[in-house]
C-alpha cells in the first residue's frame, strides 16, 4: 500500500457515512460502484519503478506550457507518491510553473539532448511558437500533453471570433466594462492597447504577437506522442509514464510514432456505468434543471452528453458525478471531426414524429434549434483540429 492510499481510503469512507442520513438521492448514489457491464480502463502497473538512476544516466525532462491554463502541469501531481521520486530518474531542465529553467538554458543545450518534453497548451502567439520550435529542436521525443496541445482546446475557441486577434484585443482592452471605464477615465483621447513593439529611450521593448488563428501543437511542430484530456487523467498519465520508464530501465521499445497514449479503442459509453434505455430526447435539459437519476443514461434524461463521440480512457468521471461528458478526450481513433460525430449521434436521438412524413423542413429546423450554441457545444475542445478551423466571413452578406 502506498503512502497516499491511506488517505484515499479514509476519504472514500467518510462521504459514504454521511450519505446514509442524507435525503438527496443524487449525492448518495453518485459514487456508486460500477455495475457489471461497464468496463474500467485500468491504470498501468508501474510496479517498483524508479529504483535509482538508470544505467545510462538520468533522462532530461522538460515540461512547458504554451497557451494553457496550468491544469495540465497540476495534473502531473496525480501520479501520487511517484512524483516525489521523479528526481531519481529524470533531471527536470525546464518547468515554468515549478522550476527555474529559462529559455537561454535550453538554447545552450545540444540538439536532441532533452529526452522528453511534455508540452501542454495550444500555440497562440509568437512566443509559444518560438518556444515549441526550440523544444522540438533540442528534444528526442515530443509529447503533446492535454487537449489544448492536441486539439486546440478552449483557447482554440478564439478562432470563432470573426475579426481574429484585432477584435479580441479591441474587446478586451476597450469594450469590457472595467477596461472601458478605465480607458474613458484615463485615456479618453487615445486608448491604451498593448503593442507588440514600442520604442523607449533605453531601446525597443517587445511583446509576443497574438495570432488570429490558434494552432494545435502538431500544426506547428512534429509531435511523437499524444495524451488527451483536460487535464489528462491519472490512468492515462500512468500509461505514458510506464512507456517512458520501460524504455529507460528495461529497454522496451517505445510505441510507434503518433500513438495516442492512455486511451481505449472504444468510446466513453463503454466505461460509463449508467444504463441506457434508448429513450428519445424531446426536450433538452441542463443538469441543474433536473434531478439527475444516478443510474440512467444522461441522454435518456435529456441531457446532451458527448460520450458516444468521445474516446474512453478517463473512466467516465464526469458522467459518474452526474455531469455530461464535454468531450475533452477528443474523438475516437478513426474520426477526425469530433463535433460532427457528436452532432450525428445527438441529432439521431430526436424522435421521429407522427407528422414527420408530411411536415415541412421549418418544423424540423425549429426542433433542432432547441440545441443552443451547437458549435460551441460539440466543438468545445476540438475547434483547432476541426476541418474548418476558424470562422469565415461571407463577402456578400
Amino acid at each position, binding site marked *: 500500500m502506498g503512502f497516499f492510499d491511506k488517505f484515499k481510503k479514509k476519504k472514500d469512507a467518510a462521504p459514504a457515512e454521511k450519505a446514509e442520513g442524507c435525503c438527496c438521492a443524487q449525492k448518495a448514489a453518485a459514487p456508486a460502484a460500477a455495475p457489471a457491464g461497464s468496463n474500467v480502463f485500468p491504470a498501468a502497473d508501474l510496479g517498483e519503478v524508479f529504483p535509482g538512476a538508470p544505467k545510462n544516466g538520468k533522462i532530461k525532462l522538460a515540461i512547458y506550457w504554451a497557451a494553457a491554463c496550468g491544469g495540465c502541469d497540476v495534473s502531473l501531481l496525480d501520479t501520487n507518491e511517484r512524483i516525489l521520486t521523479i528526481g531519481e530518474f529524470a533531471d527536470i531542465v525546464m518547468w515554468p510553473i515549478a522550476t527555474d529553467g529559462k529559455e537561454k538554458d535550453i538554447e545552450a543545450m545540444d540538439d536532441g539532448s532533452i529526452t522528453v518534453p511534455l508540452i501542454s497548451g495550444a500555440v497562440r502567439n509568437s512566443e509559444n511558437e518560438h518556444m515549441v520550435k526550440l523544444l522540438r529542436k533540442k528534444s528526442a521525443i515530443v509529447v503533446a500533453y492535454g487537449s489544448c496541445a492536441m486539439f486546440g482546446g478552449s483557447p482554440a475557441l478564439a478562432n470563432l471570433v470573426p475579426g481574429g*486577434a484585432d477584435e479580441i484585443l479591441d474587446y478586451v482592452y476597450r469594450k469590457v466594462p472595467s477596461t472601458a471605464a478605465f480607458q474613458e477615465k484615463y485615456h479618453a483621447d487615445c486608448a491604451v492597447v498593448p503593442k507588440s513593439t514600442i520604442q523607449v529611450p533605453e531601446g525597443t521593448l517587445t511583446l509576443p*504577437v497574438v495570432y488570429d488563428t490558434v494552432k494545435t501543437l502538431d500544426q506547428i511542430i512534429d509531435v511523437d506522442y499524444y495524451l488527451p484530456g483536460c487535464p489528462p487523467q491519472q490512468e492515462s498519465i500512468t500509461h505514458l509514464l510506464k512507456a517512458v520508464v520501460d524504455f529507460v530501465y528495461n529497454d522496451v521499445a517505445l510505441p510507434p510514432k503518433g500513438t495516442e497514449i492512455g486511451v481505449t479503442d472504444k468510446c466513453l459509453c463503454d466505461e460509463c456505468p449508467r444504463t441506457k434505455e434508448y429513450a428519445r430526447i424531446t426536450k433538452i435539459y441542463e443538469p441543474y434543471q433536473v434531478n439527475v437519476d444516478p443510474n440512467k443514461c444522461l441522454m435518456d434524461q435529456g441531457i446532451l452528453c458527448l460520450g458516444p463521440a468521445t474516446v474512453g480512457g478517463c473512466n467516465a468521471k464526469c458522467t459518474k458525478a452526474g455531469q455530461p461528458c464535454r468531450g475533452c478526450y477528443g474523438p475516437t481513433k478513426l474520426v477526425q471531426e469530433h463535433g*460532427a460525430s457528436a*452532432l450525428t449521434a445527438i441529432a*439521431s436521438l430526436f424522435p*421521429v414524429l407522427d407528422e414527420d412524413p408530411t411536415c415541412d*423542413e421549418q418544423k424540423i429546423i425549429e426542433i*433542432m434549434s432547441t440545441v443552443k450554441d451547437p458549435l460551441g457545444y460539440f466543438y468545445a475542445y476540438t475547434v483547432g483540429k476541426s*476541418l474548418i478551423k476558424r470562422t469565415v466571413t461571407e*463577402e456578400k452578406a
Partner: protein
Amino acid sequence: MADNFEPLIVTFCCNWCSYAGADNAGVGRRQMPPNFRIIRTMCSARIDPEFVLRALSKGADGVMVLGCHPADCHYIGGNYRARRRIALLRLVLEQYGFDPRRLKLEWVSASEGEKFQTTVVNFVDVIKALGPTPIKSEKAIAQSTNAVAYAAAKEE
C-alpha cells in the same frame, strides 16, 4: 469576377431515389449547368456531417444533400435522421460564418428527373448570387495562416 464565377457544388445522392432521379434527368436530356459533382451514398443518412464539412473545407461553394421523400426511405427512417442532422449542421455552419443557403437538403424521387433539374438550376443560381466560398477568400487565408502576426513578428 462574379460574372465568370462558376461554382463548384458537391451533391450527395442516395442510391435508391435521388441517384436514380439524376439518372432520369439525364435520360430525359434535361439541360443542367455542369457545376455539380454527384457522390452516391446508399442512403441520405449515410452522409456524415463530416463529409459536408470536408467538402466545404476543401473549397466547395455549396453542398446539396438529396434523399428519398419522407416515408419513402428504402431503409424506412434514414431520411428522418438525415434531415435532423442537416438542420443541426446548418446551424453549425451558420456559426462558422457560412451562409446557411450553401447547404441544401431536398427530396428527389427516382421518377423526378424534372425536380432534380430545377433543384440543381435553382441551387446553382443561389450559389452564383452568394459568390465564391468564403473559405478561399483572401481574408480567411490571411487569418488562418496568421499572416498579420508573422509580418509583425518579422519587423521586431
